[in-house]
């Protein structure tokens, strides 16, 4: 029975990967089309951008007068202000983008199916070794991406998210694959369910934030007049808007990561008799936490808003990926659950 479910799971994940590939191509085509369209729309975009920024400047001036007291940040961008002129200039949701999203949803349903089958096959949560963790975490990353669309239109991150998940799934299925084996006693704990799940979920949120920060960096280069021949950027939100969105996602991820850290300490106390022992994995969880704390501070520090803090968000996400891959595979420690 186990073997049947394991093969269902694998079939589902391979199908999901095939469809993610198609989705990735469609997202890329959409970006290419944005480049083509943006030359037509650039005039409209330019006016849109200026009007948005003047209203913001006005507010800033007023804020400076009345907020002498209190914290250094006052994020005064508004949700209702036009995102960027170009969005208005492209009334119909482009068909390639819609197609890409539809494909992503289908692939994701298969992907979740793969996760569920794996869990049923193993008769436990499907995130106890690196293969399963890759499978589940990428499902969560794409899940967060899809869910976030109800809050903000971040479809332009589609190629980043599907591309990232494809690479992760490719490595996971080819290099990390292990058969279903029972959990060793140290992993038999409710904390495996909670701690690892929240860690994966925050990875999903940080992934989106990192994507936004990357686009933000490109956008702010373009806005500062540096020659960046990526015309699709015209159709995307302005840099400070991207920064605000990245920040909002990051703080949510940060709260979850803080919880992960604390839950991990509670579990370590149960399993190993001490809540903190500077095990390599603990060290890296701490490093990542500190980087993101730095990011939040950077946003409140003069001279660090904008591109510098965006770099911190990207470094933070890179540290997460490093923590999962290199640290798990090559560093020695108690968290030897890779099963490889």
């Amino acid at each position, binding site marked *: 029975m186990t073997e049947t479910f394991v093969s269902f799971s694998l079939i589902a994940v391979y199908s999901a990967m095939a469809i993610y590939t198609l989705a990735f191509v469609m997202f890329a085509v959409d970006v290419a089309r944005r480049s083509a369209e943006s030359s037509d729309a650039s005039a409209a975009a330019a006016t849109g951008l200026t009007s948005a920024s003047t209203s913001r400047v006005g507010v800033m001036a007023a804020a400076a007068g009345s907020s002498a007291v209190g914290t250094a940040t006052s994020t005064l961008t508004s949700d209702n202000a036009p995102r960027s002129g170009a969005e208005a200039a492209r009334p119909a949701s482009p068909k390639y983008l819609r197609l890409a999203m539809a494909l992503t949803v289908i692939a994701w349903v298969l992907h979740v199916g793969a996760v569920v089958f794996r869990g049923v096959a193993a008769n436990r949560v499907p995130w106890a070794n690196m293969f399963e963790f890759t499978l589940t975490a990428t499902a969560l990353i794409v899940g967060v991406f899809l869910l976030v669309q109800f809050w903000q239109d971040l479809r332009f991150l589609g190629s980043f998210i599907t591309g990232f998940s494809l690479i992760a799934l490719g490595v996971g299925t080819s290099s990390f694959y292990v058969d279903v084996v029972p959990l060793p006693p140290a992993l*038999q704990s409710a904390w495996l369910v909670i701690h690892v799940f929240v860690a994966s979920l925050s990875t999903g949120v940080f992934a989106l934030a990192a994507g936004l920060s990357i686009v933000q960096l490109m956008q702010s280069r373009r806005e500062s007049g540096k020659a960046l021949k990526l015309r699709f950027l015209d159709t995307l939100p302005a840099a400070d808007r991207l920064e605000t969105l990245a920040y909002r996602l990051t703080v949510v991820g940060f709260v979850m990561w803080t919880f992960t850290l604390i839950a991990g300490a*509670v579990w370590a106390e149960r399993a*190993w008799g001490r809540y*903190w022992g500077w095990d390599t994995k603990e060290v890296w969880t701490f490093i990542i936490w500190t980087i993101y*704390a*730095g990011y939040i501070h950077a946003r409140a520090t003069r*001279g660090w808003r904008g591109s510098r803090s965006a770099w911190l968000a990207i470094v933070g996400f890179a540290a997460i990926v490093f923590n999962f891959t290199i640290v798990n595979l090559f*560093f020695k420690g108690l968290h030897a659950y890779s099963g490889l």
Partner: protein
Amino acid sequence: MDAPVPQSKIQQPRLGFVGYARFFWRQLTSMRTALFLLLLLAVAAIPGSLVPQVSSDPNGVVAYHRNYPDTAAVLDFFQVFTTYTSVWFSAIYLLLFISLIGCVLPRTKHHFDALRARPPKTPARLSRLEGFTTRTTEADAATAVDGARRLLRSQRYRTELYGDSVSAERGYLRETGNLVFHSALVGVLLAVGLGGGFGYTGQRVVVEGYAFSNSLASYDSFNPGRFFADTALEPFTIALDSFVPVYEQSNKDAIGQAIDYTANVTTTMRGEASQSARVKVNEPLSLGGTNVYLLGNGYAPVLTVRDADEAVIWSQPTACLPFDSNLGSTCVIKIPDGLEQQIGMLGFLYPTTNALSTGALVSVYPDLIAPTLTLEVYEGDLGLDNGQGTNAYALNTDSLEQIAGRTSEADTIRLTPGDRAELPNGLGSVELASIPRFVSLDVHHDPSQGPVLLFAILVIAGLVTSLFVPRRRMWVAASTDKTGTTTIEYAALARGDDPNLEAAVAEFADKHSQQLSVRVDS
């Protein structure tokens, strides 16, 4: 919390000592320094993850010294093997926390003042602010402002009237949360640093059927905290009644993998009746303020050694160190007294024995299905009398001569439970009486645990409050023109990230004007 920008660099007055002190303090408690120290801390934590640490991997440190003596000397100098207690790492986090305290104290005072202060005067030009919107009503300005004030209060704003306008502020909890968060970080550090010092950890190997009492003398190894006193050892004894492992038997990818360990114990607090309890991985046993963890297990064969006259001179279990996942283990038995010569025995235990084609033995399953114990016997000087501590799990054969084994005339001794074999040279005999299990227990007393958890919860609570409670000001101003129509202006200002500000103003304006029209109509 930026330090004020230093005044023009030219013509700066000379700073005295106090001036310098103040200057450094201001630099240290500036946001820029906090950020720098935070990032520095992240970078400083990296080396400790690359190099084995004395605290978590002492054997790794020894091996590193053996393999790379030159690099190790350099790393030793920079205290990299003890990164997290090193001078430089400590300096970074201590500076960070001093900076933090220097930040939090003035902000707390500031916040108390803000809590008592009146919301600020209504700005002259509301139209420049966020979410500016207007409504008109037939009601007069005073009624409109009064209604707005009441509505604002019901939404938990603090309000203040300024002429025909009301100024309101809410979300002080945001700053409270921020202060709680940062203070709780200090709390965590203090609890770890101070509370941890009063605790201890001890390790003890216990064989089935044996007991140990919680006293210094009975531990195999013991690490007291800085402020440890003997009184921290609670008076209890723990007897290991049985150890029950469960191994996977059906999944062919994982035959023999451990899936459960249970240590059944009897505990006795001094002056109380004995109680049965169990210890499992992930389920420590808690005795008063002390926790007992099940960390390792293995086999402890009981050997009975008799001299040439059949007198029993040795009969006790020896814990063997497992070297593979099927619990193939090495055993070291040292018999210093009772025989004509000191005897050392080096044993290999195979719980489920199988022979390779080369004749070498291996264990193929961790449970005791077909156990074999092989013994190589040495005689000579065990080196126990020279006063140096020796490792109980290693046999130093420098001044020993093998009398049974691969390099001597007599063959290696092979025993299964109940077997008895003669020792060479007419020294006597050795019998494998039984093979009970042992567990290694970690006993921890850590008074910091409770406080650290409490502060950790405060960290999360403060964080969530400070990141997600919107702090905003709202103003409502009314003016009536000659025709008797009152125009009401609404606007707001966010303090910190506030995604829903505009929506909140619009919603408020709608609700307020609706209430007004209801009142006018009736």
